């Protein structure tokens, strides 16, 4: 009855009774044990065969090493290799190394060093650290007061 009500239908009993799935799932009680499962297997005797390929079949049944990419085992394997190689080995490792060795990003560390150098230089010479005016006032030409 659980198999009838649950979303997976007959597939659930098939999962439960299929010994090939022992590794990945919660261990099942033997089919003769609980009265409920005996009823279930009577109601759904050959569920996979009767559903004629419409039940959800896990790809792990045909391919123990299914990686999630393709039903064809060769394509699955190669797709996995390409994704990991270009994703991890190239993009993250090589790309990460490239980023790590990039020069001073935005010249921020240079700016810090330059600022410290200028400060020590101006303090040693007794000059103020920074002028109030950004532009030299003598170079600014303003129109005369009477002109409009």
């Amino acid at each position, binding site marked *: 009855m659980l198999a009838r009500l649950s979303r997976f239908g007959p597939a659930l009993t098939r999962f439960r009774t299929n010994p090939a799935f022992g590794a990945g799932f919660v261990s099942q009680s033997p089919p003769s044990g609980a009265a409920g499962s005996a009823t279930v297997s009577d109601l759904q005797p050959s569920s996979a065969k009767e559903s004629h390929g419409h039940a959800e079949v896990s790809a792990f049944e045909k391919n123990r090493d299914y990686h999630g990419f393709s039903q064809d085992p060769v394509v699955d394997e190669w797709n*996995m290799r390409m994704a990991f190689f*270009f994703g991890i080995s190239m993009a*993250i490792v090589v790309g990460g190394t490239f*980023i790590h060795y990039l020069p001073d990003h935005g010249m921020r560390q240079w700016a810090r060093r330059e600022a410290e150098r200028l400060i020590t230089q101006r303090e040693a010479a007794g000059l103020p650290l920074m002028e109030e005016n950004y532009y030299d006032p003598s170079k600014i030409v303003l129109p005369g007061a009477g002109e409009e």
Partner: protein
Amino acid sequence: MLKILIPTLMLFPTIWLSPAKWLWTTSIAQSLIIALASLSWLKWSSETGWSSSNLYLATDPLSTPLLVLTCWLLPLMILASQNHISPEPLNRQRTYISLLVSLQTFLILAFGATEIIMFYIMFEATLLPTLIIITRWGNQTERLNAGTYFLFYTLAGSLPLLVALLLLQNDNGTLSMFTLQYTQPLHLLTWGDKLWWAACLLAFLVKMPLYGVHLWLPKAHVEAPIAGSMILAAVLLKLGGYGMMRMMVMLDPLTKELAYPFIILALWGIIMTGSICLRQTDLKSLIAYSSVGHMGLVAGGILIQTPWGFTGAIILMIAHGLASSALFCLANTSYERTHSRTMLLARGMQMVLPLMTTWWFMASLANLALPPLPNLMGELMIITSMFNWSYWTLLLTGIGTLITASYSLYLFLMTQRGPLPSHIIALEPTHTREHLLITLHLIPIILLILKPELIWGWCF
């Protein structure tokens, strides 16, 4: 620029001319090579802004992180879609990947655009592939409503933007970002000028989204297939933030007064959407509302126009893009197994899929802004700069951060801990593909801890 654009355009022949069984392998390989090449944009060795420039496209420290994020996301979208698209007929699979690649192309052109009309056209162009992905490949009937909301909210916001840009072109003679940054502040005094100001920003506020015009987002994010949710959450929302930051350059000094209602809406939105998240039963809807909250903080940071606000906004955009996309991928792994987004139906997953729980944990920690992840750094910069702008914002941002932590923890506990329902004790084991997908999201966030200056933008 062309060394990224041409391989991206050549993805179209790759998709359509690959033999059927190698379609996904070649797509993922080529898109990862493009992602690797895009890292070369991160070189910024001068102190001044634009680099990699030609007449029409250039990169600067604001657009570069977003461009790299876009290029990184395409292979991730292809990885995520592989399972649910493979039962479809071959040409439809090719069409789907072509839509993702066309989105990528429009986004590269949008973020790289130096002329605002070009940015606008690409901004609008990204709507079309997204609409097709949502309405054609979404799983529920609500996808049509979602597509309508998505399209019309964004269009209603962006048509005034077109008018505003044409007016600006008429007055200034140019809309090139190179020259606009040096124009004099505009004398904006009349009501018409204020409407112009609002028209410039409305499209981006809708896109971010700002709380109040955010209704399209939960619908679109939930109804979209996984690739649609990923690109929406990770990049398309950031188009809004990016657009706002570009336009802010010209909108001073009006912004000082006119931004108030939007800042308040953004901050209030953090609290409201956070509270909505705590009451959600739909997993994707929770993640979608959390995006609204985070983007509200970004909007607040941009609207106050301070260097730390801008920097925090960029950092949070990148970090949130990766974290939110990771959460959607995780939700999708749950959805592909149980065909339900209801959190109550897929609890206690830690018992069945323990390694996936590790990824859920890390993604939830990223979402709740755990130090030293860049999510926290961005949020902290925005919160402190808003505190400097007005002390009262601390109340809203503080409560917002608290609620964010609560719902992120709630998300993790509801999906991973608790009793395992009896109907899902026999779930498909996690595929290698899914582990790779999540790690490719999480590793960049962690690596950004080590070199955050890549995403500090040009203000810091």
